[in-house]
C-alpha cells in the first residue's frame, strides 16, 4: 500500500488557502507527511497519484449548499480513510460523518493542533477524536447510539471544554494515558455501531489488537 516512506495524504478542499495551509503543516511535520495530490473534486482521490494516498483530508463543503455527505460515503465505501475537515461544528453533522464511516472529524478551528496527529493516527487505523468530535459523541441522544459510562462522558466533556489532555487528567485525577484510552474507547464504540463500513472494521480490529478494548466488550 505504501508508495514510499512515511504517510501520504490527498487533500480535497475548494479553498486554495486551506489546501496550502494543510500542505504547509504536512511539510513541516516531523517526519513530514507527503501530499500526493490536491484539488476541489472527489476525482483527485479516485484517480492519479491520489488513489494511493493513505489518508484523504476532505472538506465537507465542496461547494455552496448542503454538506457533501454523498461524496464522503463514496470515499468510505471505497475503503478510504477520511479525515473530515470542515467549518461545521454542530453535533448532528459530526455524528453523521462518523456514521458514514469517516475515520475522524476536525473543525477548521482544530486543524492547527490536531490535523497532523489525526492524519498519523488515522493512517495507522487508530482512533482519534478531537474536542468537537468528542463533545458530539458525549451529547449524542440518537437512538442506537453506543452506551457510554458517566466517566467516559465526563472525560469527553472535559476534553471538549479544555482541549488539553493534561488538564482533563488533572481535573478527573487520571493519567494522560488513561484520558487517551477513554477517548479512544468511545471512538471505537462508535466504530462498532450503526451501519458497517470497512474503515470502521479496521478501526475496531486495530483497537482489539492494541488491547484498547476486549472482544467481549463488543
Amino acid at each position: 500500500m505504501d508508495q514510499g516512506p512515511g504517510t501520504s495524504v490527498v487533500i480535497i478542499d475548494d479553498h486554495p488557502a486551506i489546501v496550502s495551509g494543510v500542505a504547509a503543516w504536512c511539510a513541516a511535520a516531523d517526519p513530514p507527511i507527503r501530499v500526493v495530490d490536491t484539488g476541489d473534486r472527489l476525482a483527485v482521490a479516485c484517480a492519479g497519484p491520489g488513489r494511493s494516498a493513505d489518508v484523504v483530508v476532505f472538506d465537507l463543503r465542496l461547494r455552496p449548499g448542503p454538506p457533501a455527505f454523498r461524496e464522503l460515503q463514496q470515499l468510505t465505501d471505497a475503503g478510504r480513510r477520511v479525515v473530515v475537515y470542515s467549518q461545521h461544528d454542530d453535533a448532528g453533522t459530526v455524528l453523521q460523518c462518523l456514521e458514514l464511516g469517516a475515520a475522524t472529524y476536525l473543525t477548521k478551528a482544530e486543524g492547527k493542533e490536531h490535523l497532523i496527529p489525526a492524519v498519523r493516527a488515522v493512517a495507522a487505523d487508530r482512533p482519534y477524536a478531537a474536542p468537537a468530535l468528542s463533545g458530539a459523541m458525549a451529547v449524542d441522544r440518537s437512538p442506537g447510539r453506543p452506551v457510554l459510562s458517566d466517566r467516559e462522558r465526563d472525560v469527553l466533556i472535559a476534553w471538549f471544554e479544555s482541549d488539553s489532555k493534561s488538564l482533563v487528567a488533572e481535573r478527573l485525577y487520571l493519567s494522560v494515558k488513561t484520558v487517551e484510552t477513554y477517548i479512544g474507547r468511545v471512538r471505537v464504540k462508535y466504530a462498532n455501531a450503526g451501519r458497517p463500513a470497512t474503515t470502521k472494521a479496521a478501526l475496531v480490529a486495530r483497537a482489539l489488537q492494541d488491547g484498547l478494548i476486549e472482544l467481549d466488550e463488543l
Partner: protein
Amino acid sequence: MADADPDFLAAHLLRGVRVASTVIATTILVGLALPNVLGALDAYRPAWLVLAWFAVLLAVALVDGVLVLRRRSWGPARWPVAAMILAVSGAALTAVPGPQLVTPADPILGTVGWLGVLLFADRSIRLLAAFLACSPVLTLVYVGFADRLDQPTIARLLLATVSIGGFQLAAGAAAMALRRVAAEASAAAVRQSEIRTAEAVAAQLHADRDGRYEALRDSVVPLLTGMADGSLRPADPGVRQRCAVEAARMRRLFAEADDTADPLGSALAAVIDVAERRGVVVSLSRLGRWVQPPGDVRGMLVDEVAAALLSADGSARVTIGGSEETVAVSVVVERGDVEGGIRDRGDVHITTLTEGDRVWVEARWTRVPAPVS
C-alpha cells in the same frame, strides 16, 4: 412602554365623569334638597330624622369628592354605604307626614338615586338600576302603610320615578359607555405601543447586525487587500495575529446568527467581544442545546468566564454546552491570572485548574442540584 398601565386612559376619562357626577349630586343635595328640607322642617315628625338623613347623604357625597381627588374607587365599601343610605332614607320617610309624601317637601325620592350614581357608575348598569329602584319602592311601601295610595300620589310617584330615575340612569349609562370606550382606547393604545416597541427592537437588532458587519468590513477588507497587494506579509506575526482576531470574530458572528432565543449565548458573545478588542484571540464552540438558567445565574456564569477572559493574554478557548438539565460555560486561557480551586456560588459550581500559565475555568449550573459526588 411595555409596562404602561392599560387602565391609564380609562382612569383619565372616567375621572371627568366622576367629577361631574359628584358635582351634580352635591348641587342637588345642597341646592335642591336642602331648601326643601328647611322649608318643610316644621312639618316633619321628628325633624332631626330628616336632618340626619340629609347629613348622611351629604357626608357620602363629600367622601366621594375626596375619593375622586385621590383617584380612588369606593371598592367593597360601596355595599355598606349603599345599605346605610337606604336604611336612613327608609327611616327619614317615616318622619314625612302623609300629605307631604311625593311632593317637593319630600326630598328623599328624588335625591337618593344620585348617590347611587356615585357608588355604582363604575360597576354595572344593572346594579345602578337596582339601587335606583329601591327609593321608589321604599316610598311606595311607605305610602301604602300610610294609606295614601290615592290616584294623585301614585301618579306623582310614577312621574317622579320615570323623570328623575331616567335622568340618573342616563348619567350612569353615559359613564359606563365612556368607560367601555376608554377601555377599548386603552387596549388600542397598548397594542400600538407594543407594535412600536417591536418595531424599535427589530430596527435596533438590524442596526446592531449592520454595525457588526460594518466593523468586519472595516477590519477584514483592509487586511485582505493588504495581503493581496503585498503590503501586508503573512509571515509577519502582527499580520497573523490580526488575521486570527478577525477569523475569531467572524466565526462568532456566524454562531450568533441563530441565538436570539439564547440570552446566555448572547451575554457570552458580548464578553468575548470585549476580550477580542483587547487583542485576545477567542475561539467559541457550542455543544448541543442547553437549558436557559435564570437571570442571576446567567450573570454568575458569564462573570466567571469574563474574569478569566479579561485577565488573559494571547488566545482563549470558550465553550458553552449542556442538556435539558444543565449548562456549562468553560474558558481556557493562556497566561491568565486566576487562582485555582473549586467553589460554589449559589447553585453554580465553579472549577478552576491551572497548569503553568494556562488556566481552565468551568462554571456549571444544574437545574436540580445534583447529589454531591
